[in-house]
Each structure stands twice: as structure tokens, then as C-alpha cells.
């Protein structure tokens, strides 16, 4: 578990984002330190996923800044004017941030192993043999050594999601983003994916996750951020956020998970 003394990895300040007239993010501030597991919670529509997607520029943010290792993501400021980086520069930044999606998004024309290898060979420029070795290592680590030649359509949702995690983590990202990665899974498949994530968290991977798995968040996260209406309404250690909700909105939100959370102790 990372302490507050660990180096600052991700720093977001005043991030805003609108879709047309609808302001989704109204100025988000967030810090993630190296080795930390930070969870974004909140009702749907509160902007969690949009914020996550701004971090690797799958969505463009409008004002504010997001910095990874001190380097601003997506834009540079030149004589007070904000300019978008080139696609090549943005791609290089994205390569340092891994992402796992709600709907897995495995490349459908590739086996599990090829899915993991693609970024290693094409983005990292690793020789095929080395990429294969790395892919096999990670597929083994997520418990899919015997499924590496299977295509996505031959795998269950839980298995596909574990391949997707292997694909992201094999790139050795500085930060790993998880966007509601268990929401599309059948209930009996959720545990296998959460187990892999817990394993990664223990190994010191820096993780930022959007999740509705409150028990998991409570057990694994170092820092919990409650988002409401496009702003950070409360943030702190899990015990603090879950046991001393400062606003009626957070109390109401947590109330829905009451049975689960009291079970967690």
C-alpha cells in the first residue's frame, strides 16, 4: 500500500468536459501516487467514466490539465495558447497508460496471445519471440495459460476480460485504468476478474478504477473518490468515505450497498 510520501504520478487540476450543452465534468482535481489504488465511485452520469477516458485522451478535455509524471496529457501550452499534441505524441503518451474496458474490446481476429503481443511488437518494437514470452507470462499470471490460442469468441466474458487485463499490463504502463470492468460480466464471473485485479494491486501496480463493486473498492483501494454531478464531492481513505459520508448524496448512494458494506466490517 502506497503512502502519501510516494511520488506523484497522476495529477488532474480543474478538468472540464462538455457534450454539447451538457457539462459532464465541472472541474475535477485528483492526485494518484505511485503504487496507489484509487477508486472512483458515484451514480451513473456523475462523470466517472468520462474523466477516466480523458486521462488517455479517448475524450478530449476542455479546460484544466492532466499530468502524468509531470507531463501534460494531450496538450501543450504555447504562448498562453493551448494546442493539441500530434497524434504520434498522443499515441506515445497513451502507451504509458493502460486501459481495461467494460466490454473487453479484444481484437476479434486475434487469439488471446496475439491480442497481448500486438502492442508489444508494434508499439514497443519488441522482437516477436520476446513479445510471445511476455504474452505467455501474463496469460499464465491471469490463469489463462491453456487458453492462449483461443479467439475471443471462444472465451467466456471473464476470460476475455482477463486477456484484456493481460494485454494492458504486458505493456508495463505507469498507470492502469479500469472502466467498470466487471459490469458486463455474469455475476459468477466477477470474482475471477477481481482476483486478478487484487493480485495486480498487491504487486504495486498503480491503478485508477471506476467500479460499482463496493466491497472490492473498500478492501483494495487506498483512496476513494466520490463523484457527484461532475465534481469530486468527497475523497479520502475507504474507511473515512464509507463510514463518515459527509453529504446526504453520498449517504444515499452508499445506502444502496448497505448490506454488502456492513458485511465487510
Amino acid at each position: 500500500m502506497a503512502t502519501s510520501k510516494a511520488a506523484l504520478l497522476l495529477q488532474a487540476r480543474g478538468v472540464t468536459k462538455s457534450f454539447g450543452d451538457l457539462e459532464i465534468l465541472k472541474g475535477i482535481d485528483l492526485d494518484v501516487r505511485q503504487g496507489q489504488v484509487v477508486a472512483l465511485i458515484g451514480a451513473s452520469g456523475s462523470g466517472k467514466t468520462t474523466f477516466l477516458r480523458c486521462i488517455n485522451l479517448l475524450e478530449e478535455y476542455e479546460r484544466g490539465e492532466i499530468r502524468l509524471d509531470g507531463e501534460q496529457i494531450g496538450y501543450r501550452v504555447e504562448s498562453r495558447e493551448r494546442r493539441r499534441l500530434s497524434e504520434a505524441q498522443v499515441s506515445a503518451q497513451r502507451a504509458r497508460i493502460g486501459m481495461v474496458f467494460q466490454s473487453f474490446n479484444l481484437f476479434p481476429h486475434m487469439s488471446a496471445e496475439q491480442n497481448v503481443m500486438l502492442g508489444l511488437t508494434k508499439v514497443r518494437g519488441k522482437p516477436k519471440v520476446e513479445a510471445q514470452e511476455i504474452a505467455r507470462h501474463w496469460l499464465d499470471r491471469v490463469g489463462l495459460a491453456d487458453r492462449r490460442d483461443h479467439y475471443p469468441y471462444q472465451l467466456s466474458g471473464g476470460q476475455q476480460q482477463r486477456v484484456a487485463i493481460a494485454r494492458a499490463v504486458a505493456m508495463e504502463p505507469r498507470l492502469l485504468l479500469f472502466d467498470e470492468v466487471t459490469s458486463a460480466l455474469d455475476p459468477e464471473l466477477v470474482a475471477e476478474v477481481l482476483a486478478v485485479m487484487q493480485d495486480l494491486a498487491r504487486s504495486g501496480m498503480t491503478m485508477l478504477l471506476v467500479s460499482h463493486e463496493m466491497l472490492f473498492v473498500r478492501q483494495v483501494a487506498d483512496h476513494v473518490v466520490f463523484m457527484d454531478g461532475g465534481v469530486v464531492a468527497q475523497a479520502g481513505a475507504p474507511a473515512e468515505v464509507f463510514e463518515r459520508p459527509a453529504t446526504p448524496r453520498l449517504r444515499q448512494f452508499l445506502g444502496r450497498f448497505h448490506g454488502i458494506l456492513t458485511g465487510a466490517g
Partner: protein
Amino acid sequence: MLNYNFNWSVIWRNWDAFLDALLLGLGMAVLSLLVGCIIGLLVAYARLAQNRVLQWAAWAYVELIRNTPLLLLVFMCYFGLPELGIRFLDKVESFVLTLSLYAGAYMAEVFRAGLSSIPRQYVEAAKAIGMRPWQRQRWVVLPVMFRITLPSLSNNLISLFKDTSLAAAIAVPELTFTARQVNANTFRVMEAWLTATALYLVTCYAIALALRAVERRYASIR
């Protein structure tokens, strides 16, 4: 008709001509499909581009070709281009050029539909591992589109092979032209045309079977 006496010996005597004609037709069809795929891909990207001029040019090309009879295009290319000073094309080259442009317009529509049908999620996954725009196209979008459009590709190859019969109009020695030659030289009407028919039929069916095997090989998407 009942009095017609079949004499197949003229066919055996001209068998080599028939086979050469068949291979020429197949060759022209395959070449046109390949060139047509390249044209079609470029035109499909142009139609989906941000640039209005590109969009319009691609649209105009597709509509011009699709709303004009192929035979007319064949004549325009063979008789018209030399008038404009383009004289280096022989009959076969001229026909392959026409058929390629024709295939290009149809493949452009196939590829446009294919490109539009690729789920955004695959592209996002490719972005997320840091792939550059052309890498995303090369390793994710195009391979997926190829698998989606494979059945249309087979149908187009069969159509193009049948369309090579129009080359007879400019005396390219393909199957239809050869059948007419044999007919004219030997007066064996039924034998000549039945042979050509059978060769077209068998070849088209064989193409369909072969490409269905290819489709099964690449069936990993569903």
C-alpha cells in the same frame, strides 16, 4: 432441334483455345479485382474523409461508374482513350483497366460499409495500447473489415469473371469470343456455346467453393 447431330470433335480440336480463353478471362477478373480493391479502398477512405472535395470526388466516381453500362465503359476506354492520345494500351490492358475501374466503384461501396460497421471499441482498444493512426488501420481496422467483407469479395470475383465476356466486344480472345470463333469457323453452334456455358458455370462454382473455404478459415469473428 431434334434433327441436330452433336459433333463434339470440333471442341476437342479447339480445346487448347478454350482453355487459354478461360485462363485469360480468369486472369483478367483476378487482376481487376486486385486493382479494384486498391482503388475501392482509397475511394472508401476518401468518402469517409473530412475533406469535402475528396468526399465529393469519390462519390462522383462511384455514381458515374455504377450508373453507366459496363459495355459502354469498355468502348469508351478502348475507342475513346486513343483519341485523347492514350495509345499504349492493347485490347487486354484496356479491358483490364475498364474492369478495374468498374470493380473499384463496387468495392468502394463494399469497403465503405465494412469500415463503417467496425465497432468503435476495437479502435479505442488500439488507441489505448498506444497504436498510431495508421497502425490502428493496418493491424485492427483493415483485418477486421477484410473478414467482414470477404463474402462480398467472393461475389464480386464471380461477377467480374462473368463480365469478362464483354471483352469479346473488342475482340479479346476470352471464352465468349472463342466460342463465337469456333461457331463461325465450324458451324457447330450448340457445341461451341454449350462448351462455353459449361466452362463458365464450372469455373464460377469452383470459385464460390474455394472462397467459401477461405471464409471458413477466417471465420474467427463470430
